[in-house]
Protein backbone atom coordinates (compact mmCIF):
# COMPACT_ATOMS: atom_id res chain seq x y z
CA UNK A 1 0.00 0.00 0.00
CA UNK A 2 1.31 3.43 -0.84
CA UNK A 3 1.81 6.19 1.67
CA UNK A 4 -0.77 8.98 1.60
CA UNK A 5 0.60 11.09 4.45
CA UNK A 6 4.17 11.14 5.69
CA UNK A 7 5.60 13.30 8.43
CA UNK A 8 9.30 13.44 9.04
CA UNK A 9 11.09 15.14 11.92
CA UNK A 10 8.35 17.66 12.66
CA UNK A 11 9.21 20.32 15.23
CA UNK A 12 7.28 23.33 16.46
CA UNK A 13 7.94 25.84 19.21
CA UNK A 14 5.51 28.53 20.30
CA UNK A 15 6.38 31.76 22.04
CA UNK A 16 3.70 32.72 24.51
CA UNK A 17 2.94 35.65 26.74
CA UNK A 18 3.88 39.32 26.85
CA UNK A 19 7.48 38.47 27.68
CA UNK A 20 7.74 35.55 25.25
CA UNK A 21 8.47 32.21 26.81
CA UNK A 22 9.37 29.49 24.38
CA UNK A 23 7.51 26.24 24.67
CA UNK A 24 8.42 23.29 22.51
CA UNK A 25 5.21 21.51 21.54
CA UNK A 26 6.46 19.04 18.94
CA UNK A 27 9.88 17.53 19.50
CA UNK A 28 10.62 15.70 16.28
CA UNK A 29 7.63 13.70 15.10
CA UNK A 30 7.73 11.15 12.33
CA UNK A 31 5.06 8.77 11.11
CA UNK A 32 3.45 7.63 7.92
CA UNK A 33 -0.12 6.72 7.06
CA UNK A 34 -0.85 4.20 4.33
CA UNK A 35 -3.72 4.39 1.91
CA UNK A 36 -6.97 2.79 3.03
CA UNK A 37 -6.31 2.48 6.75
CA UNK A 38 -7.79 4.11 9.82
CA UNK A 39 -4.94 5.65 11.71
CA UNK A 40 -5.43 6.61 15.34
CA UNK A 41 -3.37 9.45 16.74
CA UNK A 42 -3.64 9.39 20.48
CA UNK A 43 -2.23 11.21 23.39
CA UNK A 44 -3.28 12.97 26.56
CA UNK A 45 -4.54 16.56 26.44
CA UNK A 46 -1.81 19.00 25.52
CA UNK A 47 0.50 16.41 24.02
CA UNK A 48 0.52 18.09 20.60
CA UNK A 49 -2.08 16.14 18.60
CA UNK A 50 -3.93 19.19 17.33
CA UNK A 51 -0.67 21.06 16.63
CA UNK A 52 0.49 18.16 14.43
CA UNK A 53 -2.80 18.15 12.55
CA UNK A 54 -2.68 21.91 12.07
CA UNK A 55 0.84 21.62 10.65
CA UNK A 56 -0.38 19.00 8.17
CA UNK A 57 -3.21 21.25 6.99
CA UNK A 58 -1.09 24.38 6.69
CA UNK A 59 -2.71 26.29 9.55
CA UNK A 60 0.62 26.40 11.37
CA UNK A 61 4.07 26.52 9.87
CA UNK A 62 6.47 24.00 11.44
CA UNK A 63 9.96 25.09 12.51
CA UNK A 64 11.53 22.00 11.03
CA UNK A 65 10.50 18.79 9.34
CA UNK A 66 8.88 17.63 6.14
CA UNK A 67 5.24 16.81 5.48
CA UNK A 68 3.97 15.14 2.32
CA UNK A 69 0.31 14.83 1.42
CA UNK A 70 -0.64 12.54 -1.47
CA UNK A 71 2.96 12.62 -2.66
CA UNK A 72 3.17 16.43 -2.77
CA UNK A 73 4.51 19.03 -0.33
CA UNK A 74 1.66 19.74 2.06
CA UNK A 75 1.36 23.47 1.28
CA UNK A 76 0.68 22.82 -2.40
CA UNK A 77 -3.02 23.70 -2.93
CA UNK A 78 -3.34 20.66 -5.20
CA UNK A 79 -2.49 18.35 -2.33
CA UNK A 80 -5.40 19.77 -0.36
CA UNK A 81 -7.89 18.99 -3.13
CA UNK A 82 -8.14 15.44 -1.85
CA UNK A 83 -8.16 16.15 1.88
CA UNK A 84 -11.13 16.59 4.19
CA UNK A 85 -10.77 18.08 7.66
CA UNK A 86 -12.98 18.31 10.72
CA UNK A 87 -11.42 20.45 13.46
CA UNK A 88 -11.85 19.90 17.17
CA UNK A 89 -14.96 21.63 18.61
CA UNK A 90 -15.88 22.93 15.18
CA UNK A 91 -17.34 26.39 14.81
CA UNK A 92 -18.87 27.39 11.54
CA UNK A 93 -20.63 30.36 10.08
CA UNK A 94 -23.74 30.21 12.22
CA UNK A 95 -25.74 32.53 9.97
CA UNK A 96 -25.83 29.88 7.22
CA UNK A 97 -28.27 27.00 6.97
CA UNK A 98 -26.87 23.47 6.74
CA UNK A 99 -27.51 23.38 3.01
CA UNK A 100 -25.97 26.84 2.36
CA UNK A 101 -23.02 25.84 4.51
CA UNK A 102 -22.23 22.69 2.52
CA UNK A 103 -22.78 24.59 -0.72
CA UNK A 104 -20.24 27.21 0.36
CA UNK A 105 -17.57 24.59 0.99
CA UNK A 106 -18.45 22.85 -2.25
CA UNK A 107 -17.81 26.12 -4.07
CA UNK A 108 -14.43 26.46 -2.39
CA UNK A 109 -13.51 23.15 -4.03
CA UNK A 110 -14.79 24.55 -7.33
CA UNK A 111 -17.41 21.85 -7.62
CA UNK A 112 -19.88 22.41 -10.44
CA UNK A 113 -23.45 23.37 -9.40
CA UNK A 114 -24.96 20.04 -10.55
CA UNK A 115 -22.31 18.08 -8.61
CA UNK A 116 -23.14 20.08 -5.51
CA UNK A 117 -26.89 19.59 -6.03
CA UNK A 118 -26.33 15.86 -6.13
CA UNK A 119 -23.75 15.53 -3.37
CA UNK A 120 -25.23 17.75 -0.65
CA UNK A 121 -28.46 15.76 -0.12
CA UNK A 122 -26.43 12.52 -0.13
CA UNK A 123 -24.12 13.89 2.56
CA UNK A 124 -27.00 15.20 4.64
CA UNK A 125 -28.45 11.70 4.48
CA UNK A 126 -25.15 10.09 5.40
CA UNK A 127 -24.81 12.11 8.60
CA UNK A 128 -28.56 11.87 9.27
CA UNK A 129 -29.21 15.60 9.12
CA UNK A 130 -31.83 15.76 6.37
CA UNK A 131 -34.46 17.13 8.73
CA UNK A 132 -32.17 20.07 9.68
CA UNK A 133 -31.14 20.92 6.12
CA UNK A 134 -32.77 24.34 6.13
CA UNK A 135 -32.13 25.22 9.76
CA UNK A 136 -29.52 27.86 10.52
CA UNK A 137 -26.39 26.50 12.20
CA UNK A 138 -27.00 28.85 15.11
CA UNK A 139 -29.75 26.52 16.31
CA UNK A 140 -27.62 23.37 16.11
CA UNK A 141 -26.65 21.30 19.14
CA UNK A 142 -23.08 20.21 19.55
CA UNK A 143 -23.74 16.74 18.18
CA UNK A 144 -25.46 18.24 15.13
CA UNK A 145 -22.49 20.56 14.51
CA UNK A 146 -20.19 17.56 14.68
CA UNK A 147 -22.27 15.75 12.08
CA UNK A 148 -22.55 18.68 9.70
CA UNK A 149 -18.81 19.21 10.21
CA UNK A 150 -18.19 15.67 9.11
CA UNK A 151 -20.38 16.22 6.06
CA UNK A 152 -18.33 19.32 5.26
CA UNK A 153 -15.13 17.27 5.46
CA UNK A 154 -16.50 14.84 2.85
CA UNK A 155 -17.87 17.34 0.32
CA UNK A 156 -14.88 16.94 -2.02
CA UNK A 157 -14.90 13.11 -1.84
CA UNK A 158 -11.46 13.17 -0.23
CA UNK A 159 -8.94 10.33 -0.26
CA UNK A 160 -7.69 11.38 3.15
CA UNK A 161 -10.01 12.48 5.94
CA UNK A 162 -8.44 14.11 8.99
CA UNK A 163 -10.67 14.21 12.05
CA UNK A 164 -9.58 15.97 15.23
CA UNK A 165 -11.46 14.50 18.21
CA UNK A 166 -14.46 13.53 16.08
CA UNK A 167 -16.16 11.72 18.97
CA UNK A 168 -15.69 14.40 21.60
CA UNK A 169 -18.88 15.73 23.17
CA UNK A 170 -21.17 13.16 21.61
CA UNK A 171 -23.59 10.87 23.38
CA UNK A 172 -23.06 7.08 23.07
CA UNK A 173 -25.48 6.75 20.16
CA UNK A 174 -23.90 9.67 18.35
CA UNK A 175 -20.47 8.13 18.87
CA UNK A 176 -21.57 4.84 17.45
CA UNK A 177 -23.05 6.55 14.40
CA UNK A 178 -19.87 8.51 13.73
CA UNK A 179 -17.81 5.32 14.21
CA UNK A 180 -20.00 3.57 11.68
CA UNK A 181 -19.50 6.39 9.19
CA UNK A 182 -15.73 6.20 9.68
CA UNK A 183 -15.75 2.43 9.08
CA UNK A 184 -17.88 3.00 6.00
CA UNK A 185 -15.33 5.50 4.70
CA UNK A 186 -12.62 2.86 5.00
CA UNK A 187 -14.74 0.36 3.12
CA UNK A 188 -15.04 2.96 0.35
CA UNK A 189 -11.24 3.00 0.15
CA UNK A 190 -10.65 6.28 1.96
CA UNK A 191 -7.92 6.83 4.51
CA UNK A 192 -8.92 8.24 7.88
CA UNK A 193 -6.61 9.88 10.41
CA UNK A 194 -8.30 10.58 13.71
CA UNK A 195 -7.01 11.95 16.94
CA UNK A 196 -8.62 11.09 20.21
CA UNK A 197 -8.11 10.40 23.82
CA UNK A 198 -11.13 8.14 24.03
CA UNK A 199 -9.26 4.86 23.78
CA UNK A 200 -12.21 2.51 23.49
CA UNK A 201 -13.30 4.20 20.29
CA UNK A 202 -9.82 4.04 18.80
CA UNK A 203 -9.48 0.43 19.81
CA UNK A 204 -12.74 -0.45 18.10
CA UNK A 205 -11.98 1.04 14.70
CA UNK A 206 -8.29 1.81 14.15
CA UNK A 207 -5.89 -0.36 12.19
CA UNK A 208 -2.76 1.39 13.34
CA UNK A 209 -2.02 3.90 16.06
CA UNK A 210 0.69 6.30 17.14
CA UNK A 211 0.88 7.34 20.77
CA UNK A 212 2.04 10.87 21.38
CA UNK A 213 3.18 11.99 24.82
CA UNK A 214 4.68 15.39 25.50
CA UNK A 215 5.55 16.11 21.88
CA UNK A 216 7.19 12.77 21.16
CA UNK A 217 5.82 9.61 19.63
CA UNK A 218 6.42 6.88 22.17
CA UNK A 219 4.97 4.00 20.26
CA UNK A 220 3.43 3.28 16.90
CA UNK A 221 2.35 0.28 14.91
CA UNK A 222 -0.52 -2.08 14.26
CA UNK A 223 -2.92 -2.22 17.14
CA UNK A 224 -2.65 -6.01 17.25
CA UNK A 225 1.15 -5.76 17.55
CA UNK A 226 1.08 -3.12 20.26
CA UNK A 227 -1.52 -4.71 22.45
CA UNK A 228 -0.51 -8.26 23.34
CA UNK A 229 -3.07 -11.02 23.13
CA UNK A 230 -1.68 -12.59 26.30
CA UNK A 231 -4.18 -13.06 29.07
CA UNK A 232 -3.15 -10.80 31.92
CA UNK A 233 -5.52 -12.20 34.51
CA UNK A 234 -8.94 -13.78 34.83
CA UNK A 235 -11.85 -12.20 36.67
CA UNK A 236 -14.18 -14.68 38.37
CA UNK A 237 -17.40 -13.61 40.06
CA UNK A 238 -18.53 -16.26 42.53
CA UNK A 239 -20.53 -16.77 45.68
CA UNK A 240 -20.68 -19.22 48.56
CA UNK A 241 -16.95 -19.29 49.36
CA UNK A 242 -15.24 -17.29 52.13
CA UNK A 243 -12.71 -14.62 51.26
CA UNK A 244 -10.03 -16.17 53.42
CA UNK A 245 -10.07 -19.39 51.43
CA UNK A 246 -9.95 -17.52 48.15
CA UNK A 247 -7.02 -15.33 49.15
CA UNK A 248 -4.71 -18.31 48.72
CA UNK A 249 -5.73 -18.70 45.06
CA UNK A 250 -6.11 -15.14 43.89
CA UNK A 251 -6.92 -11.59 44.86
CA UNK A 252 -10.47 -11.12 46.19
CA UNK A 253 -11.45 -7.58 45.20
CA UNK A 254 -14.97 -6.68 46.14
CA UNK A 255 -17.93 -8.32 47.74
CA UNK A 256 -21.41 -7.16 46.87
CA UNK A 257 -24.70 -8.94 47.54
CA UNK A 258 -22.79 -12.02 48.65
CA UNK A 259 -20.79 -12.17 45.42
CA UNK A 260 -17.02 -11.89 45.33
CA UNK A 261 -14.91 -10.63 42.45
CA UNK A 262 -11.72 -12.65 42.35
CA UNK A 263 -8.70 -11.73 40.25
CA UNK A 264 -6.63 -14.82 39.34
CA UNK A 265 -3.23 -14.21 37.75
CA UNK A 266 -2.09 -17.79 37.37
CA UNK A 267 -4.05 -19.69 34.74
CA UNK A 268 -3.35 -23.01 36.48
CA UNK A 269 -5.21 -21.85 39.55
CA UNK A 270 -8.49 -21.25 37.74
CA UNK A 271 -9.33 -24.95 37.90
CA UNK A 272 -8.49 -24.98 41.61
CA UNK A 273 -10.92 -22.09 42.20
CA UNK A 274 -13.68 -23.88 40.31
CA UNK A 275 -13.04 -27.08 42.31
CA UNK A 276 -13.21 -25.11 45.54
CA UNK A 277 -16.55 -23.55 44.57
CA UNK A 278 -17.98 -26.97 43.76
CA UNK A 279 -16.78 -28.41 47.07
CA UNK A 280 -18.40 -25.56 49.03
CA UNK A 281 -21.60 -25.88 46.93
CA UNK A 282 -21.20 -22.28 45.80
CA UNK A 283 -21.89 -20.70 42.39
CA UNK A 284 -19.74 -19.26 39.62
CA UNK A 285 -21.55 -16.30 38.04
CA UNK A 286 -19.00 -15.30 35.46
CA UNK A 287 -15.49 -16.03 34.32
CA UNK A 288 -13.75 -13.44 32.18
CA UNK A 289 -10.18 -13.61 30.86
CA UNK A 290 -8.73 -10.10 30.54
CA UNK A 291 -6.21 -9.35 27.81
CA UNK A 292 -4.18 -6.16 27.67
CA UNK A 293 -6.17 -3.20 26.39
CA UNK A 294 -4.97 -0.08 24.68
CA UNK A 295 -5.82 1.71 27.89
CA UNK A 296 -3.35 -0.45 29.87
CA UNK A 297 -0.66 0.31 27.33
CA UNK A 298 -1.50 4.01 27.27
CA UNK A 299 -1.63 4.43 31.03
CA UNK A 300 1.64 2.53 31.34
CA UNK A 301 3.28 4.98 28.93
CA UNK A 302 1.87 8.21 30.26
CA UNK A 303 2.17 7.53 33.97
CA UNK A 304 5.99 7.37 34.50
CA UNK A 305 6.28 11.06 33.56
Amino acid at each position, binding site marked *: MSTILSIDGLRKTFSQGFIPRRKEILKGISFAVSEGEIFGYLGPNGSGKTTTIKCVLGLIFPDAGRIELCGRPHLDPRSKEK*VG*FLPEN*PYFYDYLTAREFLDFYGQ*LFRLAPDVRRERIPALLKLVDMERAADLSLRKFSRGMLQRIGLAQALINEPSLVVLDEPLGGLDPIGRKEIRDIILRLRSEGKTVVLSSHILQDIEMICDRVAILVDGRILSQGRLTDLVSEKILFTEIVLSGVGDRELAALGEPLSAQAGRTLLKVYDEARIQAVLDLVRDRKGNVHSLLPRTQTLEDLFVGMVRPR
Partner: protein
Amino acid sequence: MTVKVIAVNTFKEAVRDRILYLLLFFAAAAILLSRVLAMFTVGDRTKIIKDVGLASISIFGALMAILIGTGLVYKEIEKRTIFTLISKPIRRSEFLLGKYFGLVLTLAVMLASMGLIFLALILIQTGALEGRLLLAILFIFFELVLLTAVAILFSCFSTPILSSLFSLGFYVIGHFSWSLETLVKKARPGLGKTLLRLLTAVLPDLENFNIRTEVVHGLPLPASLLLYSAAYGIVYAAFVLTVAVLIFRRRDFI
Protein backbone atom coordinates in the same frame (compact mmCIF):
# COMPACT_ATOMS: atom_id res chain seq x y z
CA MET B 1 -13.25 32.50 -8.44
CA THR B 2 -12.47 31.47 -4.84
CA VAL B 3 -12.16 35.16 -4.00
CA LYS B 4 -15.69 35.66 -5.32
CA VAL B 5 -17.10 32.76 -3.25
CA ILE B 6 -15.56 34.16 -0.07
CA ALA B 7 -16.58 37.71 -0.97
CA VAL B 8 -20.22 36.70 -1.42
CA ASN B 9 -20.14 34.86 1.89
CA THR B 10 -18.58 37.87 3.60
CA PHE B 11 -21.31 40.05 2.15
CA LYS B 12 -23.92 37.66 3.58
CA GLU B 13 -22.18 37.81 6.94
CA ALA B 14 -21.93 41.61 6.97
CA VAL B 15 -25.53 42.26 5.93
CA ARG B 16 -26.71 39.94 8.73
CA ASP B 17 -24.74 42.02 11.25
CA ARG B 18 -26.99 44.22 13.35
CA ILE B 19 -24.41 46.99 13.78
CA LEU B 20 -24.73 47.80 10.08
CA TYR B 21 -28.39 48.67 10.41
CA LEU B 22 -27.80 50.67 13.55
CA LEU B 23 -25.30 52.81 11.65
CA LEU B 24 -27.59 53.02 8.65
CA PHE B 25 -30.40 54.23 10.92
CA PHE B 26 -28.23 56.98 12.42
CA ALA B 27 -26.92 57.94 9.00
CA ALA B 28 -30.50 58.34 7.77
CA ALA B 29 -31.32 60.37 10.86
CA ALA B 30 -28.29 62.63 10.30
CA ILE B 31 -29.17 63.15 6.65
CA LEU B 32 -32.74 64.06 7.54
CA LEU B 33 -31.47 66.32 10.31
CA SER B 34 -29.79 68.44 7.67
CA ARG B 35 -33.28 69.49 6.59
CA VAL B 36 -33.95 70.74 10.14
CA LEU B 37 -30.61 72.56 10.26
CA ALA B 38 -31.45 74.21 6.98
CA MET B 39 -34.52 75.77 8.54
CA PHE B 40 -32.33 77.75 10.91
CA THR B 41 -30.16 79.00 8.11
CA VAL B 42 -30.28 82.35 6.42
CA GLY B 43 -29.50 82.21 2.71
CA ASP B 44 -29.15 79.14 0.51
CA ARG B 45 -30.75 76.33 2.48
CA THR B 46 -30.06 73.69 -0.15
CA LYS B 47 -26.33 74.13 0.36
CA ILE B 48 -26.66 73.23 4.02
CA ILE B 49 -28.65 70.10 3.21
CA LYS B 50 -26.08 69.05 0.62
CA ASP B 51 -23.15 69.80 2.88
CA VAL B 52 -24.46 68.12 6.03
CA GLY B 53 -25.94 65.22 4.06
CA LEU B 54 -22.70 64.40 2.23
CA ALA B 55 -20.67 64.77 5.42
CA SER B 56 -23.03 62.35 7.19
CA ILE B 57 -22.67 59.81 4.39
CA SER B 58 -18.89 60.13 4.58
CA ILE B 59 -18.65 59.76 8.36
CA PHE B 60 -21.11 56.90 8.72
CA GLY B 61 -19.58 55.11 5.73
CA ALA B 62 -16.19 55.38 7.44
CA LEU B 63 -17.64 54.03 10.69
CA MET B 64 -19.16 51.08 8.85
CA ALA B 65 -15.86 50.31 7.13
CA ILE B 66 -13.92 50.49 10.39
CA LEU B 67 -16.34 48.73 12.74
CA ILE B 68 -17.10 45.84 10.41
CA GLY B 69 -13.72 45.67 8.68
CA THR B 70 -11.69 45.33 11.85
CA GLY B 71 -13.84 42.46 13.12
CA LEU B 72 -14.01 40.41 9.96
CA VAL B 73 -10.66 38.62 9.94
CA TYR B 74 -10.26 38.61 13.71
CA LYS B 75 -13.64 36.93 14.18
CA GLU B 76 -12.69 34.18 11.75
CA ILE B 77 -9.60 33.39 13.79
CA GLU B 78 -11.27 33.82 17.17
CA LYS B 79 -14.27 31.68 16.28
CA ARG B 80 -11.97 29.20 14.52
CA THR B 81 -14.06 29.24 11.36
CA ILE B 82 -10.79 29.87 9.57
CA PHE B 83 -9.54 26.36 10.35
CA THR B 84 -11.83 24.66 7.90
CA LEU B 85 -11.30 27.40 5.30
CA ILE B 86 -7.52 27.40 5.20
CA SER B 87 -7.47 23.59 5.09
CA LYS B 88 -9.27 23.79 1.75
CA PRO B 89 -7.32 24.31 -1.47
CA ILE B 90 -7.37 28.10 -1.24
CA ARG B 91 -4.49 30.52 -0.85
CA ARG B 92 -4.40 32.73 2.17
CA SER B 93 -4.23 35.76 -0.11
CA GLU B 94 -7.46 34.61 -1.76
CA PHE B 95 -9.11 34.40 1.64
CA LEU B 96 -8.02 37.91 2.61
CA LEU B 97 -8.97 39.45 -0.73
CA GLY B 98 -12.33 37.69 -0.57
CA LYS B 99 -12.98 39.24 2.82
CA TYR B 100 -11.91 42.63 1.47
CA PHE B 101 -14.07 42.61 -1.62
CA GLY B 102 -17.00 41.26 0.37
CA LEU B 103 -16.82 44.27 2.64
CA VAL B 104 -16.31 46.68 -0.27
CA LEU B 105 -19.47 45.22 -1.82
CA THR B 106 -21.33 45.69 1.46
CA LEU B 107 -20.18 49.30 1.69
CA ALA B 108 -21.22 49.95 -1.90
CA VAL B 109 -24.73 48.75 -1.08
CA MET B 110 -24.81 50.85 2.10
CA LEU B 111 -23.55 53.95 0.30
CA ALA B 112 -26.23 53.41 -2.32
CA SER B 113 -28.92 53.24 0.39
CA MET B 114 -27.65 56.36 2.14
CA GLY B 115 -27.28 58.08 -1.23
CA LEU B 116 -30.89 57.26 -2.11
CA ILE B 117 -32.20 58.81 1.09
CA PHE B 118 -30.00 61.86 0.49
CA LEU B 119 -30.98 62.30 -3.14
CA ALA B 120 -34.65 61.85 -2.31
CA LEU B 121 -34.36 64.65 0.24
CA ILE B 122 -32.62 66.90 -2.30
CA LEU B 123 -35.26 66.07 -4.89
CA ILE B 124 -38.05 67.00 -2.49
CA GLN B 125 -36.26 70.22 -1.54
CA THR B 126 -35.19 71.49 -4.95
CA GLY B 127 -37.24 69.51 -7.44
CA ALA B 128 -34.06 68.72 -9.39
CA LEU B 129 -31.06 66.35 -9.20
CA GLU B 130 -27.44 67.11 -9.84
CA GLY B 131 -25.07 64.57 -11.34
CA ARG B 132 -22.24 66.11 -9.38
CA LEU B 133 -23.77 64.88 -6.13
CA LEU B 134 -23.30 61.34 -7.39
CA LEU B 135 -19.68 62.18 -8.13
CA ALA B 136 -19.17 63.32 -4.55
CA ILE B 137 -20.65 60.02 -3.30
CA LEU B 138 -18.41 58.07 -5.69
CA PHE B 139 -15.35 59.74 -4.16
CA ILE B 140 -16.59 58.91 -0.68
CA PHE B 141 -16.66 55.33 -1.96
CA PHE B 142 -13.02 55.60 -3.08
CA GLU B 143 -12.11 56.77 0.39
CA LEU B 144 -13.92 53.80 1.93
CA VAL B 145 -12.13 51.41 -0.44
CA LEU B 146 -8.87 52.63 1.08
CA LEU B 147 -10.14 52.73 4.64
CA THR B 148 -11.43 49.14 4.39
CA ALA B 149 -7.99 47.96 3.28
CA VAL B 150 -6.49 49.68 6.31
CA ALA B 151 -9.07 48.14 8.65
CA ILE B 152 -8.37 44.66 7.22
CA LEU B 153 -4.61 45.21 7.58
CA PHE B 154 -4.89 46.01 11.28
CA SER B 155 -7.37 43.21 11.79
CA CYS B 156 -4.72 40.72 10.57
CA PHE B 157 -2.61 41.10 13.66
CA SER B 158 -4.62 42.94 16.28
CA THR B 159 -7.89 42.77 18.24
CA PRO B 160 -10.99 44.55 16.91
CA ILE B 161 -10.86 47.32 19.54
CA LEU B 162 -7.22 48.15 18.88
CA SER B 163 -7.70 47.86 15.13
CA SER B 164 -10.69 50.20 15.31
CA LEU B 165 -8.61 52.76 17.19
CA PHE B 166 -5.74 52.42 14.70
CA SER B 167 -8.09 52.74 11.73
CA LEU B 168 -9.85 55.69 13.30
CA GLY B 169 -6.43 57.26 13.83
CA PHE B 170 -5.65 56.68 10.16
CA TYR B 171 -8.95 58.35 9.23
CA VAL B 172 -8.37 61.41 11.42
CA ILE B 173 -4.71 61.82 10.44
CA GLY B 174 -5.68 61.37 6.80
CA HIS B 175 -8.11 64.26 6.98
CA PHE B 176 -5.71 66.66 8.70
CA SER B 177 -2.42 65.75 7.07
CA TRP B 178 -2.91 68.52 4.48
CA SER B 179 -2.16 71.05 7.23
CA LEU B 180 1.35 69.57 7.41
CA GLU B 181 1.98 70.92 3.94
CA THR B 182 1.31 74.43 5.23
CA LEU B 183 3.82 73.76 7.97
CA VAL B 184 6.39 72.54 5.43
CA LYS B 185 6.01 75.80 3.52
CA LYS B 186 6.60 77.86 6.64
CA ALA B 187 9.44 75.78 8.11
CA ARG B 188 13.02 76.93 7.73
CA PRO B 189 15.19 74.81 5.42
CA GLY B 190 17.12 72.11 7.28
CA LEU B 191 16.64 68.71 8.86
CA GLY B 192 13.25 69.66 10.28
CA LYS B 193 11.88 70.60 6.89
CA THR B 194 13.20 67.38 5.31
CA LEU B 195 11.58 65.30 8.04
CA LEU B 196 8.28 67.12 7.62
CA ARG B 197 8.48 66.56 3.85
CA LEU B 198 9.02 62.83 4.47
CA LEU B 199 6.06 62.73 6.83
CA THR B 200 3.73 64.41 4.33
CA ALA B 201 4.81 61.87 1.72
CA VAL B 202 4.14 58.87 3.97
CA LEU B 203 0.95 59.97 5.70
CA PRO B 204 -2.26 59.36 3.82
CA ASP B 205 -4.10 62.35 2.44
CA LEU B 206 -7.78 61.52 2.61
CA GLU B 207 -8.78 65.10 1.71
CA ASN B 208 -8.00 64.02 -1.85
CA PHE B 209 -11.37 62.32 -1.83
CA ASN B 210 -13.20 65.28 -0.41
CA ILE B 211 -14.78 67.13 -3.31
CA ARG B 212 -17.82 68.11 -1.31
CA THR B 213 -17.00 71.83 -1.12
CA GLU B 214 -16.56 72.02 -4.89
CA VAL B 215 -19.80 70.12 -5.50
CA VAL B 216 -21.88 72.04 -2.97
CA HIS B 217 -20.67 75.46 -4.05
CA GLY B 218 -20.63 74.72 -7.74
CA LEU B 219 -16.87 75.23 -8.14
CA PRO B 220 -15.01 73.74 -11.13
CA LEU B 221 -13.63 70.19 -10.77
CA PRO B 222 -10.80 69.50 -13.25
CA ALA B 223 -10.81 65.96 -14.65
CA SER B 224 -7.09 65.59 -13.95
CA LEU B 225 -7.69 66.16 -10.23
CA LEU B 226 -10.45 63.56 -10.18
CA LEU B 227 -8.32 61.02 -12.02
CA TYR B 228 -5.39 61.65 -9.72
CA SER B 229 -7.55 61.21 -6.61
CA ALA B 230 -9.12 57.98 -7.87
CA ALA B 231 -5.73 56.56 -8.82
CA TYR B 232 -4.30 57.64 -5.47
CA GLY B 233 -7.02 55.69 -3.62
CA ILE B 234 -6.63 52.54 -5.67
CA VAL B 235 -2.82 52.46 -5.53
CA TYR B 236 -2.75 53.19 -1.81
CA ALA B 237 -5.36 50.48 -1.13
CA ALA B 238 -3.41 47.97 -3.26
CA PHE B 239 -0.26 48.75 -1.30
CA VAL B 240 -2.01 48.34 2.08
CA LEU B 241 -3.58 45.06 0.95
CA THR B 242 -0.19 43.74 -0.19
CA VAL B 243 1.24 44.42 3.27
CA ALA B 244 -1.81 42.73 4.83
CA VAL B 245 -1.34 39.64 2.66
CA LEU B 246 2.37 39.47 3.53
CA ILE B 247 1.55 39.53 7.25
CA PHE B 248 -1.34 37.12 6.93
CA ARG B 249 0.66 34.59 4.92
CA ARG B 250 3.08 33.99 7.76
CA ARG B 251 0.58 33.75 10.58
CA ASP B 252 0.08 30.63 12.67
CA PHE B 253 -3.53 29.89 13.52
CA ILE B 254 -3.25 28.44 16.99
